[in-house]
Structure formats: C-alpha cells, structure tokens
C-alpha cells in the first residue's frame, strides 16, 4: 500500500506504469509543440524535414519567423504592457487588502472579505461581460449628461487591465495575507513605542517583512495576466493581447510560427516559475 508496508510486485509496477503514463500525458503536447517549432516544414506536422531556426529568425516571404512577425510582436508587447499594469495595480491593492483584513477591525469585515473572495468563484467569462456592460452603461451615462466621450469606457487597453486586475487582486491579497499572518506584531509595537508612527512602521518594518511574498505574488500576477484569455476576450479593443492573437491564428489554421511562440512562452514561463520558486524557498 504505502512505503512502510510490504507491496506486491504487480502493485508497485502497475502504479509506476500509471504514473509514467500520467506524466507522458502531461508533457506530450508541450514536447511535440516545442519539437515542431524546429521542423523545416511549412506545416506544424511530421514528417521531420530537418532542423531549422527559420520560424524564429526567418525574414523571407512565406517563411517569416517570430522575430520579424510584426503582428505577433506587437501583440507580445501589448501583453507585456497589460501584465505590467495589472501586476503593479494588483500588488498595491492586494497588499492594502491584506493589511485591511489581517490588521484592521471594522464593521462588515466578514461581508467585505466574502466579497473579496467572490472573483475566485465567478467564471472569467462572466467577469468579462459584466465589466463590459457596466463600462458601457457608464460611458452612455457620461456621454448623455456631460456630453463627453471617455475612451476608458470602451473596450480597449485599460478595460483589459481593469478586467484582469479585478480577479488577480484577490490572488495577491490571499498570498500577502498568508505571509502577514506569520508576522510578529510585537515588532510593530516596539517601533511604535520607540516613537514611529503607524505609516513609518508599515513602511520600514512590515513591508520589508512582506517583500518576498509581494514579489512572488507580483510575478504570479504578471503570468496570469499575460496568459489570460476568458476575461480579456470580451474587453479587448483594437490592441489584441498575445492569447487573443494566437487564438485567432490557431482557429483559422496554423503555422510553425505559433510553435515558435509557444516554445518561447514555455521556456519563459518555466524560467519565471523557477525564479518564483527560489524566491519562495528563500523566504521560508
């Protein structure tokens, strides 16, 4: 059954085979995607026609690699900008949230906490459409009363940022709260006794302690924003993010350039994951 008990041979071997199959199931699509990014064929399929870097560096007509593909490059740039603002906003607000729920007492705290958790159980598509509707309602109201056309209320860059922020901030709040729970509050009391005010205490002591958690949460927020599809789908304007651009390409047929982008994404996210992991190991 378990390590400390005698196991029959078929049991151990059967289990090993099952777990082996499970892991191949897990990695097969990723490995195939990566390998085919280097196949010298106009379709992301076998047979193998030799190794090439064309789908990364090529600039010939019909064989444009990702580094010369303006549509995908600009989508990657948009995604970076969105992810930057989302992680900045959500780390600030999420840290405020962590302080609020861990250190402050006020009426309706339970209700507000429950509301803070809600974005986790609301499907992303619903978040997307409700924010789209509400922005539209606001836009119409502002236009009718002040005769102003506010671009923020139309689908576009900032609406995507706000839509992603609305649920990623919850995640940051939870991660930072978990760290804040371990904080020894006598340190704050000592600083207060020595004449610091509350803001100084937070800035010099509590935030220093929270820094690894905030950086880790920021990295996860960046990644989640970079990859978000469901919420973004309804809020996106003329500046498409990478998942949206890729989705349109995958739906209408595919080229090995998509494999090349996927390869870069897989390598990039794995690196970010490793960095995040070493950070969280250090803080323990």
């Amino acid at each position: 059954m378990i390590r400390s008990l005698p196991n029959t041979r078929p049991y151990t071997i059967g289990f090993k085979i099952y777990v082996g199959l499970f892991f191949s199931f897990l990695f097969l699509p990723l490995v195939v995607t990566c390998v085919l990014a280097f196949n010298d064929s106009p379709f992301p399929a076998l047979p193998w026609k030799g190794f090439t870097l064309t789908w990364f560096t090529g600039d010939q007509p019909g064989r444009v690699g990702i580094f010369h593909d303006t549509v995908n490059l600009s989508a990657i740039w948009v995604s970076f900008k969105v992810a930057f603002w989302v992680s900045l906003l959500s780390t600030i607000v999420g840290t405020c949230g962590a302080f609020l729920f861990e250190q402050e007492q006020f009426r309706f705290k339970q209700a507000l906490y429950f509301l803070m958790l809600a974005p986790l159980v609301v499907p992303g598509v619903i978040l997307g459409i409700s924010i789209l509707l509400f922005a539209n309602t606001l836009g119409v109201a502002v236009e009718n009363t002040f005769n102003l056309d506010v671009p923020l209320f139309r689908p576009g860059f900032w609406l995507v940022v706000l839509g992603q922020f609305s649920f990623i901030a919850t995640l940051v709040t939870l991660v930072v709260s978990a760290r804040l729970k371990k904080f020894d509050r006598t340190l704050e009391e000592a600083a207060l006794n020595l004449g610091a005010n509350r803001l100084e205490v937070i800035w010099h002591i509590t935030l220093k302690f929270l820094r690894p958690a905030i950086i880790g949460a920021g990295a996860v927020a960046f990644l989640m924003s970079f990859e978000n599809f469901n919420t973004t789908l309804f809020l996106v304007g003329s500046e498409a993010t990478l998942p949206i651009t890729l989705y349109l390409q995958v739906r209408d047929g595919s080229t090995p350039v998509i494999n090349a982008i996927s390869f870069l994404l897989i390598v990039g996210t794995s690196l970010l994951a490793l960095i995040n992991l070493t950070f969280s190991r250090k803080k323990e």
Partner: protein
Amino acid sequence: MRSRRSLTFLLFITPVVLWLFLLIVLPHVDLLLMSFHTEDDSGAMVWSLVNYLNFFQEPVYWRTFMRTAIYAILVTMITFAVSLPVAFYITKVVSPRFSGFLSLLLLMPFWVSELVRVYGWMILLRESGVLNHFLMVSGLLQRPVEMLYNDVTMVMGLVYTSMLFMVVPLISVLESLDDSLIEAAYDLGGGIFSIVTRIIIPHAMPGIMSGGIVVFMLTLGNYLTPNLIGGKNSLWFTEQIYNQFIASFNWNQGAAFGFLLLVLSSSIIWLGLKLTRQKLSQVVQ
C-alpha cells in the same frame, strides 16, 4: 493617535472598496438589470422577461446549458479519478527523495498558457497530426482519422486543462494523513478497496471538495477548449454567451445567459460546500 490610525485605515480600505464595488458588485448588478431589459419596437429599453423566456422556450439554449452542466460535472469526476492515484503515489508510495521533484514536475505544464496546451493537443490529434503520422507509419492505420472535434477529445482536453487544481489540494490533504492509520487498517486485514473508501477518501474530503469546486468552475466557464477541439455542432454555454455579445450584438440576451451561468456555478459550489460543511474561506486557502 486615534486620527493616525483612522488615516491608515482609510488608506487601506479605499482602494479595496473601490476595487470591489466598481469592478465586482456594480458590474454584476448591471448584468442582472440588463438581463431584465429588452428593446421595444421603438428601440427604447423596457423591463421585460423576454430574455429568460427565450432561454426556456428555445430548446437549443437550455439544451446547451444542461449539456455544459452535465459535462462539467463529468469532467470534475474524471479529473478526480485520474488525480487521486497520482497524488497518493507522490505523497505515500514513492521514496521521499523523489516526491518533491515529482510534485514540481507536475506543476510545470500548468504555468504555460492554456492556449499553448490546447494547441499542443491540436497538432497531436488532428487529421494531419503527429499521432496519425505515427499510426500510419507503423501500419496500424491505412488512412488518417480526425481525432479532434468530438466530445471525447473535448472532455480529455478539459480534464487536462484543469487537472492541476485537483492534484495540488489532494497532495496537500494526503500529506496530512497519518501513515499509521493505513498501516493499522492493513494489519487488521483491510484490502485496498476498503482502505481507499474508508480511510483515504474521508480524510481527503476537504481537498476533494476544494479541488472539485475549482475544476467545476473553470470547466463551466471554459471557452478555449470546447471552442477549439470540441464538436462543431455542439456548443458550450460560454460560446452561446459569446455569440450573443459579439455575433448577434444582443447584449440583453447575453446578460441573461451570463447570469444563468453565474447562478448555476454559484449554486453548485454552494451545494458542494453545504454537503461537506465547509466554508468558502477555508476552501480557497
């Protein structure tokens, strides 16, 4: 002192309240209001139940809805069945030296965008795909078979997409299961079946619930996987919502669909929490 404290309090509560009310509460209230409105003949917005009536009268809508709900439950159960042995192996069977490495390895694919993972399955399974190529070369198949665009592949894709959210909570509950309980059951003559159903599953219930809720919610709200590898003539409910919003531009109808999906997902989650007597705040930890 008193005023200082309230200053920091304001500093914390203002952004949080702005966030939750402007981006969560008011949009959902607006969603609900929109779903009860429709355009009359002159193009003005009036209160109406027509969006919900449409849903119940048009078989294609509620069939899609039921189909989505049933498939989401099925996907959740399959995900659990596939994940439990893996979580058990990692926490209890494999030597402790490898268990850390294996759980790390397990997380890796899920850092990668869902789109990339679905795309990987597409190039594996399609008619000109890698799997067909190998089957043809080895002589098992004479002509390529289209393995995409059917329900079995779609369910597999959905299970693949959400597996992580089941395995991780299962690993953490199984880690807290005392080995001696299993040893005792074994010494008293318990077989694998009774150990699993009477010790492991009851102990793992909180993890099963939290994994189940997240998997269910994500599957129900998934758009990419059903859209890209699901059958072309059998829609997922999120696709109906998308069609109303983007294709027919009937936002009121789309709002009603969105609200129905929200009600479905919240009520199943609520039911799950009630049945296992847990709180939402414990489950999301």
